[in-house]
């Protein structure tokens, strides 16, 4: 129970197959009180808060759209009102669309930039301001992707936003270090989350088997494994780690060959 007494907020955590829920659950397993946020799957959001409560922690469901700065700010106000503070923020909400470079549509470009880049900006800014006000430091962890290291075809805008996350995290780590706020990001590889269900390369059992063989460790990643990595960054073990990127991808990002 390394996070007893800490308050965490996780965006994009409503769906029970999502990385966000893997993070929220792992944080609660270490004793943290957890705010679960989402704008999609909001019908499941209260169930996730109940799951947190069933684990003996305080749980709070807040529906908010991370692309709307006012909604993000209100979410943090409500977190502080109801749970007293915020120590750990996992800015995890993200979106993906599969289009080749020549086929990118303006609507999808705008949507992915809004959620994956501006969403992180608003969440991290609100988080940092609250943590600075509290004066006891804090932990910010972004979910990027193995694509922060290596690029794959068919989702150039998604990949661009995830690579950009590395630069963003680095600059924030530098600027927030004087406030003892660490900023890091995790890079999931292939996780069989709801987000990835529509992936064009994963539509048949044969294709899924093929994908499995591409990963050096020969399997998909589990949402609990993403959550445990966030616990590392959020716990005392991670106190001296900032501006770091942890790929959790079974080796997918090491090389072209497995």
């Amino acid at each position, binding site marked *: 129970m390394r996070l007893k007494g800490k308050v965490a907020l996780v965006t994009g955590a409503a769906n029970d197959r999502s990385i966000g829920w893997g993070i929220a659950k792992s944080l609660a397993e270490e004793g943290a009180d957890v705010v679960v946020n989402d704008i999609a799957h909001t019908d499941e959001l209260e169930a996730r808060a109940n799951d947190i409560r069933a684990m003996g922690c305080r749980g709070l469901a807040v529906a908010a759209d991370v692309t709307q*700065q006012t909604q993000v700010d209100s979410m943090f106000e409500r977190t502080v009102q109801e749970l007293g503070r915020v120590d750990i923020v996992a800015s995890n909400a993200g979106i993906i669309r599969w289009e*080749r*470079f*020549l086929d*990118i549509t*303006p609507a999808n*470009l*705008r949507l992915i*930039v809004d959620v994956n*880049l*501006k969403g992180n*900006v*608003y969440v*991290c*800014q609100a988080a*940092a*301001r609250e943590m*600075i006000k509290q004066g006891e430091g804090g932990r910010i962890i972004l979910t990027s992707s193995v*694509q922060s290291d290596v*690029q*794959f*075809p068919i989702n*150039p*805008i998604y*990949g*661009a*936003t*995830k*690579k*950009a*996350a*590395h*630069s*963003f*995290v*680095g*600059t*924030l*780590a*530098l*600027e*927030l270090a004087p406030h003892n706020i660490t900023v890091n990001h995790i890079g999931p590889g292939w996780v069989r989350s709801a987000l990835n269900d529509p992936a064009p390369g994963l539509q048949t059992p044969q294709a899924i088997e093929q994908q499995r063989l591409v990963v050096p460790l020969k399997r998909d990643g589990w949402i609990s494994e993403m959550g445990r990595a966030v616990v590392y960054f959020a716990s005392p073990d991670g106190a001296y780690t900032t*501006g770091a990127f942890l790929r959790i991808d079974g080796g997918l990002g090491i090389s072209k060959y497995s």
Partner: protein
Amino acid sequence: MIDLSNKTILVIGGIHDLALGVAQTLQSAGAEIILAVHQDQLVAPQLHARVQPVTLHDPIQLSQQIQAMGKLDGAILSPSWFNFNSFLDTTAADWDTALAQNFENMTYAAQAIARHLIAQGKGGRLIFLSSVASIMPLVETSIVGTSLTALWALAKMAAVDLGPHGITVNVVAGGWIEAEWTKPYLHPTGRSYIQEGIPLGRIGIPQDIGNLCCFLVSDLAAYITGAIIPVDGGYLLTPAEQGHSPYPEKIDV
């Protein structure tokens, strides 16, 4: 000397000191230059070039405007947001503008130019102007770094998709360059402060970036794609120093 006669190169996006310097360098090497200027940009560049108004934020119109340009051999895509700000002071409006100018509009332009080059059937060159902040996170560059890192990733993926069409895509990452956005830091004391951290001992000039662009648009660079090349006098190589804040005091100019 690289000879770019018979090459027509489009310079599109932010038409600032850096882009104009690059255009001039390409022109000195013999290239014909088309300057694609945003309609509300009233600059009258000191350059003998075709000036073509474009609507960067409107992909459909932009596509038509680029098709109407005729023969093209390549393009220099020029982001225009290079301001320094601390993350806590950045506004939603700053992010909207910067991501539009440095990433979204550059993506639309690259896509429209690529389609035009494919239709011409002779391959071509796309070169994104960028900053070393896209390679290494730096203080007060959350916006510049994030938007230009996104552009670097996009360039790599576009290089994959456009390779079969003989189109190469590369990124040129400038360090400290004489330009509008560095001027407030380049007063005499600021200049010597910055130069201490640059192994080659001077601030770069737009022509330094232009020289690499000449090589990249030339036939000599036919096998280079998806690369990012810093042109920074070694700035990225030097470590942080104790008591040395990253930037000198900014003075209004």
